[in-house]
C-alpha cells in the first residue's frame, strides 16, 4: 500500500512565501496571546507556590473549596478541574513551615467535607529559591540544545544547512508556545521536557531531507538548487509523512488514554510534532535556498 505516489511533483519552494507568512501569522497570534495573558502561564515549578490535587467522593463545588481554603489562610487559590470529581488547587504560598502545608490542607478539607469526603492525591510545593533555579536551568537547557544541534548539523552538513535547521527548530518551539498560550496551558517542567524532545526530534526529518538534497546535488551537478530541493522533498515526502504519522498515532493514544497528569505534556508534543513536519517541508529547505541566494557556496551551478 502506498499513500503517497512516488512521482509527486509539488513545487514546495514556490509555496515557501505563503508558508512563512502563515507561520508568522500564527506566531503573532501567540505573541498577542502572551501579552493578553500577561506572560506565559508559569506553573509552580517556575513561579513557586503550592499545588494540591484532591479527589472528592462526589462532584465538588468550587466555591465551597475556595471558601474552605480561605478559612485556613490560603488567599486567592485557583481551582481547576482535573478529571471526574477531581480538582487541582493552586496557591502562591510556599510555606517553609514544615507541618504547615499538609496539616492546613487537611484541616480545611475536613472542616468542609468531612474526613471521608476527600482524598489528597498529590501535593507539590516549590519554594522561591528552587523556582528561580529551575527557570534558569530550563532556559539554559533549551538554548544549549539549540546550540548543540546547530554545531552537529553544521559539522555533518554545512553551515547554511545548520542555519536552516535552527530556524526550523526555533519556529517549532515558538508555534508550540503559541498553542500552549492560546489554550492557557500551564508551563511546568514537563512542558520544557516536551520542548526539548521536540527540538531533538523535529530536526530528524530535516536531516533526512538535507541528506537527500546533498545526495541529489552530488548526482546532478548541473541542476539548479531550487530544483534539487524540490525533487528531494518530493522524494522523501512519503517517508516524512509516514514517520510523523506513526509518532502522531502514538501521541494521540497517550493524549486520550494517558491520564490527566501527562495530558498537557502530550498536548505540547502533538503540537510540536505537527509543527515539526510543517517546518521541515516548508521552512528548512527554503532557508537553505535563501542563504544560497544571499551567499552562494562557490559550487558551479546555475541559480
Amino acid at each position, binding site marked *: 500500500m502506498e499513500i503517497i505516489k*512516488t512521482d509527486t511533483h509539488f513545487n514546495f519552494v514556490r509555496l515557501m512565501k505563503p508558508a512563512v507568512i502563515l507561520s508568522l501569522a500564527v506566531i503573532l497570534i501567540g505573541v498577542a496571546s502572551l501579552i493578553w495573558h500577561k506572560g506565559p502561564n508559569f506553573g509552580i515549578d517556575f513561579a513557586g507556590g503550592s499545588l494540591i490535587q484532591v479527589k472528592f467522593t462526589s462532584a465538588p463545588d468550587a466555591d465551597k473549596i475556595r471558601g474552605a481554603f480561605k478559612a485556613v489562610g490560603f488567599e486567592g487559590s485557583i481551582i481547576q478541574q482535573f478529571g471526574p470529581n477531581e480538582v487541582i488547587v493552586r496557591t502562591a504560598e510556599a510555606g*517553609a513551615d*514544615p507541618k504547615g502545608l499538609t496539616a492546613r490542607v487537611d484541616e480545611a478539607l475536613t472542616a468542609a467535607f468531612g474526613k471521608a469526603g476527600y482524598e489528597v492525591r498529590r501535593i507539590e510545593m516549590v*519554594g522561591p529559591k528552587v523556582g528561580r533555579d529551575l527557570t534558569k536551568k530550563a532556559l*539554559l537547557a533549551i538554548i544549549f540544545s539549540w546550540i548543540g544541534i546547530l554545531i552537529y548539523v553544521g559539522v555533518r552538513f554545512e553551515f547554511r544547512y545548520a542555519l536552516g535547521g535552527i530556524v526550523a527548530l526555533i519556529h517549532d518551539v515558538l508555534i508550540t508556545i503559541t498553542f500552549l498560550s492560546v489554550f492557557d496551558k500551564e508551563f511546568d517542567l514537563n512542558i520544557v521536557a516536551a520542548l*526539548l524532545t521536540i527540538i*531533538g526530534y523535529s530536526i530528524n526529518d530535516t536531516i533526512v531531507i538535507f541528506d537527500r538534497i546533498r545526495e541529489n546535488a552530488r548526482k546532478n551537478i548541473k541542476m539548479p538548487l531550487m530544483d534539487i530541493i524540490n525533487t528531494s522533498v518530493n522524494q522523501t515526502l512519503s517517508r516524512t509523512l509516514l514517520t510523523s504519522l506513526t509518532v502522531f498515532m502514538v*501521541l494521540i493514544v497517550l493524549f486520550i488514554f494517558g491520564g490527566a497528569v501527562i495530558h498537557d505534556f502530550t498536548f505540547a508534543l502533538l503540537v510540536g510534532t505537527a509543527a515539526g513536519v510543517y517546518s521541515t517541508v516548508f521552512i528548512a529547505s527554503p532557508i537553505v535556498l535563501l542563504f544560497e541566494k544571499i551567499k552562494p557556496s562557490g559550487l558551479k551551478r546555475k541559480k
Partner: protein
Amino acid sequence: MFNSIKIRVAVTILLCLAALVYLAPTLTSDLPDTWKNYLPMDKIHLGLDLQGGMHLVLEVQAAKAVESTLERTIGDLKENLMDKRVRFKLRDRTKDKDMSFEFPDTSARDAFDKLLKNEYPDLEIATSEMVEGKGTVTLKIKDRRTAEIKKMAVEQSLETIRNRVDQFGISEPEIIPQGVDRIIVQLPGVKDTARAKSLIGRTALLEFKLVDDEHSLDDALKGNIPEGSIVAYESHTDRTSGRRSQNPILLKNKSLMTGDALESAKVQIGDRFGEPHVSLKFNAQGAKDFDRITGDNVKKRLAIVLDGLVHSAPVIQERISGGQAQITGSFTMEEATDLAIVLRAGALPAPVTILEERTVGPSLGQDSIDKGTWASIIAGILILIFMIIYYRLAGAIADVALAMNMLLLLGVMAAFKATLTLPGIAGIVLTMGMAVDANVLINERIREELRLGKTLRAAIEAGYTKAFLTIFDSNVTTLVAALFLFGFGTGPVKGFAVTLTIGIFVSMFTAIVVTRIIFDYMIWNRKVQQISI
C-alpha cells in the same frame, strides 16, 4: 564474524534471553529458589510518581552553624579572660553590631591579643577601633575554618537525617547531597508526610539550663533582661481540656549540658497514668557532668529545653549520679517515639529549611501505572497493525523488531536499575512511534531501489547502506536533546530522558541488525526472489 547469520542470530537470542532473565522478577512473584540464589531479584524500580511517596529538597543553613560556633568560642574566650584576670567588657550582639570586646587600656588589649594568638588559632580580629581611649574589637572565624565548618555542618546534617530516617522505618529511602548545601530526601511509600517532615526538619537541640530564680520574671518581660539570662517559654498542656499553652519563664542562658552527652533515649510507659515519656541515659562523661550539676544545684530548678522551647523544669531534689533522666510531658505515643528518635540520632548542627516538596499518594501512583500500561498496549497494537497494512511482509518483520525492542528496553532498565516514571512510560510509547522510523526509512529505500530495477539482494543491500547514515544522524540529535533533558530535569523528567535514550539505542540495534538478519535469512537461505513490500 558479523556476516554469518548464525552468529548474529545467536547474539540476538542471547540478548533477548538476558532481558527476560532481568525482567522475570517484575513479571511474576513465584520464582524457583535456585533463581533467588543466582539471578537478579529486583523488580523494575518505580519512580515516586508511580509508587507514591515524598520527595524533599532541604537546604542546610550552614551560616548558622558558623554563628553558633563563633558564639561558643567567644563564650570560652570570655571565661578564659576572666580566669586570667584581664579587664574587659563584653557587649552582647545588637541589631547593628556583633558581639564586641572592650578593653580599658592597652595592657588589657595586649593580653587579649596574646591570648588570642596562642590559644585561639581559628579566630581573628574582624574590626578594631579606639573609642574614647578604649579599644573595641569584634571577632570572626578565619575564612578557611568557616568553609570547613560549613562543609562539616552539611555532612553532619546528612548523617543525622540519614540516622533519623533509618529509624523511621522506610524501605529504600534515598538521602543524597546536592550542590554545596542542599540535601535531597526521597521516601517511597511514606504515609504520614507531616510526621516525616517534622522528624527530618527539626533541629532537636537538647539543652539543660538552670532556671533563674534570682531575678524577676515580670521585669524581664518588660524588657529588663538581666545579664546572662534569657526569657523562654514553657509549653503546658492542660490535663483535662487538652489545650496547649505557653508560659514565659526566665532561664540562665548558659547551657550546662546538651544532647551530645546522651548515649541513648528510649520511650517508656509511666506507671501512674500510663503515659509515655522519654528516658535518657547519659554517656560516661555526661553522667559525671550531670552528677556534678545536680549536686551543685539541689533545690534549684533545671529546665529541659528542646529547640529553644522549655519542656519541663523540675526541681532537683537531690544529686543524681545514675546518669539517667526523664523527659515527661503530655506526649502521645507518636510524639514520644519521634522525640526518642531525634535524640538518638543527634541534633542537627544547623537548621534546615524545606525548599521543595513533592508528594504523591499511592492511589494516584497506581492510577498512573494503570493508565500508562493501557496507553502502551493500545499504542503498540495500533502500530503493529499499521505496519502490516502499509508494508505487508516487510511490515511484519518490522513488527517483530518492535516487539524485541520493547523487551530489550525493559530488560536494560531492569538490569541497570533505572527508574521508571510516568513520563518515562510516555517515553517508551514515544520510542514505539519513533522506532518504526528507522524501518520506514529502510523500507522506503528498498522500495526505491527495487523501482530502479535492482535485484532483491542488491536492493536490500543498498537500502540498508544508504539508510544507515541518515538513521544515525537523526538518532544522534534526539540523543543530544535527551542528554540535556537528563541533565536539566528532576525525578519524573529524568525518567523520560532515560527511557528515550535507552529506547533509541535499542531501536537502532533492532532496526538495523535484527531486521537485516531476517531479510538475509530469507534471501540467502531460502533463496527468496521477491518479497511483498
